């Protein structure tokens, strides 16, 4: 109690001081001068009362900030609302594998003679270092052609050979025929640079690369080297470097890759399979999804790799615009219907009020959900969807406006100023729109301001359920929608909390301003 009295005292004091001011100024004017009286227009009075209400002013400041954020922010932001961002990710990928061949490989010239039984006996003979062995009916002569390279002959005829160094084609497969392989192995053993087989002249270099003319067609080595991806031709240098690295037991080496670029490789050894794998880091381009806030993206990026701050700005535009348009549609229908109903009364009034009753009775939220899922099924384009959403929400919102306007009109209809307009013979239209409606407007503005908050929540809720504004358009509701994914809820706060806070702030601000406006318009409510 004492607090209020004090406030009043302070106010009185202020008024006194103001009067003093005026009196001092008034001394310049004559007594009859109008300027002696300080008069304020009703609008100015309302404004004054409004700005005295601190909470309402805070609300107004928040609202202005929101508008600047959404409408100017979108222009200032260097990104657009559906701009996708990518990030380069380094992934260590297998490039090639090498396996040292420790077992004898066999190649038959005459596969009918050189059967698998012969192969087994040949191994025994090699290990026992016997010059000849018998398998089945035939007796074979075993000749050591070189290091780990033996041939088996029946009489003078070579029918098969066993070896550890392998001739492979560029893809790492053994596709060469016996003669070529045999000649190549011989050349390798003898240290020759060239050999010929099947009428073709091959050259062979110290790394084991076999060329036909200028073209490398194969490789001979005790390692089986295969590229990890088909169609990749491993370079001569790479093979040599890989073999060298394996022999030196080094983990890293550098070589030209198949595109002729110097690349770093890491070598790893799988003891189980006895395979060496050369890995290289490849750069992959990906959508920059859910990246944490950084200097480039102040609030990170969302599920699609779009800048969240920018999405929030555009989302604010959509949320605010939808709110305003919906309220205007509702107000336009509501004022017309309520005005007619209140002014004419009687049967018209009864009829319109029954319609209002029916509308009140229709469950709004379920209805919009059903309409939303219908639009889903009919694949309505996102733009048209937004338009429909506004129309539906506006159309469902008018009955409360109509009730309000009707009540106000009924109140004013019987007052003296309306009787006066009738007495002066003004037309009905003029009476309603010039004299009645302006008196209703304060209440209307209050109700619209409060209603805006509600509309924004409704729109956000729908978008949250995935039935409102749709991608590519952003709205605060559909930004939060991502929280339905529990992983996002748990790990990526920056995706949904900012949007929720903005939404909350805006709705609170609309309510505060609405409250302040009501108090300012209707001083009786204040004290």
């Amino acid at each position, binding site marked *: 109690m004492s*607090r*209020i009295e004090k*406030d009043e005292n302070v106010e009185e004091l202020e008024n006194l001081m103001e009067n003093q001011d005026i009196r001092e100024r008034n001394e310049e004017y004559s007594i009859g001068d109008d300027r002696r009286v300080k008069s304020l227009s009703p609008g100015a009075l309302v404004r004054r009362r409004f700005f005295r209400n601190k*909470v309402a002013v805070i609300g107004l400041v928040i609202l202005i900030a929101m508008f600047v954020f959404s409408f100017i922010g979108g222009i200032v932001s260097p990104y657009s609302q559906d701009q996708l961002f990518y990030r380069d990710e380094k992934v260590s990928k297998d490039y090639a594998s090498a396996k040292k061949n420790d077992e004898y490989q066999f190649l038959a010239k005459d596969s009918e003679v050189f059967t698998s039984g012969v192969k087994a006996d040949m191994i025994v003979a090699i290990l026992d270092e016997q010059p000849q062995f018998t398998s089945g009916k035939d007796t074979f002569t075993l000749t050591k052609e070189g290091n780990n390279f033996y041939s088996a002959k029946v009489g003078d005829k070579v029918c098969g050979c066993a070896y550890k160094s392998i001739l492979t084609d560029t893809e790492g497969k053994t596709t060469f025929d016996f003669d070529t392989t045999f000649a190549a192995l011989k050349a390798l053993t003898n240290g020759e640079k060239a050999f010929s087989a099947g009428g073709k002249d091959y050259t062979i270099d110290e790394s084991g690369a076999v060329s036909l003319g200028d073209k490398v067609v194969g490789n001979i080595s005790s390692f089986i080297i295969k590229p990890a991806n088909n169609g990749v031709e491993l370079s001569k240098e790479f093979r040599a470097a890989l073999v060298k690295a394996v022999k030196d037991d080094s983990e890293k080496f550098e070589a030209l890759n198949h595109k002729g670029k110097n690349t770093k490789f890491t070598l790893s050894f799988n003891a189980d399979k006895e395979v060496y794998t050369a890995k290289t880091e490849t750069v992959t381009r990906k959508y920059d999804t859910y990246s944490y806030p950084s200097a480039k993206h102040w609030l990170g990026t969302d599920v699609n790799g779009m800048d969240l701050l920018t999405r929030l700005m555009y989302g604010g535009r959509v949320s605010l615009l939808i709110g305003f348009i919906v309220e205007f549609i509702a107000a336009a229908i509501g004022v017309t219907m309520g005005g007619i109903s209140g002014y004419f009364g009687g049967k018209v009034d009864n009829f319109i009020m*029954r319609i209002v*009753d*029916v509308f*009140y*009775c*229709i*469950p709004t*939220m*379920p*209805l919009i*959900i*059903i309409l939303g*899922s*219908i639009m889903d*099924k*009919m694949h309505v384009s996102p733009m048209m969807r937004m338009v429909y959403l506004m129309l539906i929400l506006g159309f469902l919102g008018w009955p409360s406006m109509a009730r309000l306007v009707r009540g106000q009109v009924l109140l004013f209809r019987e007052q003296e100023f309306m009787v006066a307009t009738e007495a002066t013979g003004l037309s009905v239209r003029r009476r309603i729109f010039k004299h009645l409606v302006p008196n209703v407007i304060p209440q209307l503005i209050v109700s619209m301001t409060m209603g805006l*908050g509600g509309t924004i*929540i409704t729109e*956000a*809720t729908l978008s*949250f*359920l995935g*039935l409102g504004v749709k991608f590519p358009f952003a709205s605060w*509701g559909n930004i*939060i929608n991502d*929280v339905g994914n*529990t992983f996002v*809820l*748990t790990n990526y*706060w920056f995706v*949904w*909390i900012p949007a*929720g806070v903005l*939404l*909350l702030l805006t*709705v*609170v601000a*609309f*309510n*505060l301003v609405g*409250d302040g406006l009501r108090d300012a318009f209707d001083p009786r409510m204040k004290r």
Partner: protein
Amino acid sequence: MRKYIIKRILISIAILFVVSFLIYLLMRCLPTSYVENLARQKSMQPNSKSYEEWMQQLSAAYGMDKGIFSGFFTWLGNALHFNFGDSWHYTVPVTQKFADTIWVSVYMGAVSMFFEIIIAIPLGIYAATHQYQKSDYIISVVAIAGMSLPTFFFASLLKLVFCVKLGWFDLFGLTGRNYEQLSSMGQIMDKAQHLFLPIVVLVVISIGSLMRYTRTNMLEVLGQDYIRTARAKGLSEKKVIYHHAFRNTLIPLVTIIGGSLPGLFSGALITETLFGINGIGYTSYNAMVNGDIPFSMFYLVFIAILTLAGNLISDILYAVVDPRVRVS
């Protein structure tokens, strides 16, 4: 009084008739894709009837094969005999599904309403009696914030804090994993634990408007002449507020609370959906999104009846509680 009530009930029935017709009209305007899809699916199953037969049966099930008017009256005739057909999405009779799911919602609604009342009314009165003081501002702003909180955002925040960070509650569902192994008391406690967060959400979301309503009405009462008289004759401030003012504030409060009683049965669509609680709200949401016409139709008309009942109750209570009000 009786005449008034009868008149109101008759008007309500007329409104209900129009509303259910409008809802029926809307349902009929739905693209029939759902029926077609369903018929196609069903005809794909082994040993099933042909697509045409299914289509025929499904259309007949909801009177889709009739014209709008005759279809509506068929539905109405069945509905008056409490025959609402079978739910398409849940494949059980609509009334059975309704009976299975309604009580969780009612329980949630009743508990949250109880807390809403015992928190909001005292705070509203406190704010009114301390008008323009710091506590009044705080209560008013908190009330507005509560009213402005989007349900889904608040629920997600609570989930993040209490389910994820603190791990006190489960993210979804009405029962825990070991529900079957619990004793009957344990089962009740388990359900209560799972309903805790949804009820908190409902209370916080709805508390603001009741608080403001209480405050406004209390302020209005405090400005009345009889309060000045009470003060003038030297009654203690306590007696003035709790004996004279509060009783008069109760009039609008009782009417508004009485009017919201039927709303307990409508379920909390968003909250139930977010917490995965199989109440009437969640069930009907799934039905609506999946184009389950019989269930949606039933639910919408049910909500309409609840709304009308709420209005009726609050009007009647207004006349009953306040002897100054004369019914005309």
